[in-house]
């Protein structure tokens, strides 16, 4: 066991894992997090807390992680390299571990031009690849980035993101290999809508033996409407929703219900792909739908480890 988190135990035991995601509020409202946490209870093995996603100031991921631990949930603390330099990142990793946080996801972070403080100076002192390596060395070698010894090391189950749909496509599997080499234990993928492209990515990853070296969790986000799908295609880099899916949404009488149906279908499909060890359900601003999706996808009850 690398960190002994519930998520790690579920994956180690060979069970199909479920993680979900909770976006902290743009305020100091702890009740908001407690309320959203209720949707996740019993429905996910661990819950991601986003770190100022889309560069919008929100309650911090560490604090949110503590708040959901108080509710009996296991957190995956997201950490981006946009806002903190190597000193602050390492300090927060120590602090998070001391609080009992056992999973983290290492990300570069959306560029600040997308957020509500586009005037901000970004940091990007190190990149996401280097963050993975840094946490791994802190955990396994008990070393800070500068080589100094850590007496009590942080125990983190280390996650990373991959986007199989970004360009250049032929480099994406290699980049996954590089993240594994850097030291990540699990992967949460970008949201999957283009199943054909995803299957290609997975086939290549299997060929390279990567699915044996890391747990890959497929990303799911239910669409709310055909209009929302079109907006994603237009404004979100690295995600392409195939026209067939948009058409199906447009034709549906109840578009929201259709979005949930499609999410459930995608999970069913992912279960059949060799090398997929779980799903990451990101019901963005729609957390209340997580129980239904997970239930209908036949993923309940969650295993007790």
């Amino acid at each position: 066991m690398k960190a002994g988190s519930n998520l790690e135990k579920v994956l180690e035991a060979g069970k199909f894992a479920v993680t979900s995601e909770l976006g902290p509020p743009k305020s100091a409202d702890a009740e908001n997090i407690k309320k959203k946490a209720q949707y996740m209870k019993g429905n996910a093995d661990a819950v991601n807390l986003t770190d100022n996603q889309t560069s919008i100031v929100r309650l911090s991921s560490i604090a949110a992680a503590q708040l959901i631990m108080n509710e009996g949930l296991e957190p995956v603390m997201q950490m981006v390299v946009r806002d903190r330099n190597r000193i602050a990142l390492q300090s927060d990793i120590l602090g998070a571990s001391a609080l009992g946080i056992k999973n983290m996801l290492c990300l570069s972070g959306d560029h600040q031009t997308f957020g509500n403080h586009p005037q901000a100076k970004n940091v990007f002192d190190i990149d996401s690849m280097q963050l993975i390596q840094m946490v791994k060395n802190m955990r396994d070698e008990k070393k800070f980035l500068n080589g100094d010894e850590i007496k009590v090391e942080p125990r983190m189950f280390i996650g990373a993101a991959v986007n199989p749909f970004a360009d250049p496509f032929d480099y994406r599997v290699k980049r996954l290999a590089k993240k594994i080499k850097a030291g990540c234990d699990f992967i949460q993928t970008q949201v999957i809508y283009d199943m054909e492209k995803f299957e290609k990515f997975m086939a290549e990853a299997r060929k390279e033996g990567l699915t044996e070296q890391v747990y890959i969790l497929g990303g799911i986000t239910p669409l709310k409407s055909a209009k929302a799908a079109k907006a994603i295609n237009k404004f979100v880099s690295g995600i392409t929703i195939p026209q067939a899916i948009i058409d199906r949404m447009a034709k549906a009488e109840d578009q929201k219900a259709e979005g949930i149906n499609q999410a459930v279908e995608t999970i069913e499909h992912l279960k059949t792909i060799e090398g997929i060890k779980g799903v990451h359900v990101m019901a963005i601003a729609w957390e209340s739908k997580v129980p239904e999706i997970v239930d209908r996808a036949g993923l309940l009850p969650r295993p007790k480890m």
Partner: protein
Amino acid sequence: MIVGEQKPIEEISKMIAEYKTVLVMGCNTCIAVCHAGGEKEVGILASALRIKNKVEGREQNIEEASMERQCEREFVDELADKIKEADCVLSLACGVGPQTIVEFYPDTIVLPGINTTFYGMPKEQGFFVEFCGGCGNCVLDMTAGICPIVRCSKSMLNGPCGGSQEGRCEVNKDIDCGWQLIHDRLKAQGKLDFMDEILPPKDWSPARHGGPRKMVREDLKIDEKPEDEIEGITKEGEK
């Protein structure tokens, strides 16, 4: 070259309003090549300021001057008289020019007429691109000669991030993804394995992050040693 653009005339006019004699001073090197502060632009801006003063009924003497390089004392000193006569110098050089004058002319008021933007090149007529961040620790040998520090919006050393699509950066579709360019060039050169290596965190201390920078080249310094010491060397040389 250093690329910059002229400040809006309204801003300049407000800045110089309180001075009777204004010396608009250009630089005929980089800032002239990007058509912002060379001799020609000095002439145009001076004329515009004179017209503006006339229209707005303001009495002000606008003088003009240019030099080869405003960042070198020997060129600046050629215009010493003009600089001393003026109530203020409006520099049309990059940010180095005005500060060179400040360094050697303690009593002169120096104002900036240029916003210095980046180190780059004219990709085509009227289109300038940023190519170097002056980070003090060049990595071009690892990245096919394309700088990830300024040509990747996140300055990633292990890119591209997940926001790269069809060769474009997530920040803006007008920005090429620097890492797509690096990838394509390495691929064409049969060196794509460069991208398998995890490049370590960068030492940013030679960049601005280490505080104001200076460079000392002992070999270029002109010795100002006491005469007896110089004699000693001569004597030794004779032996």
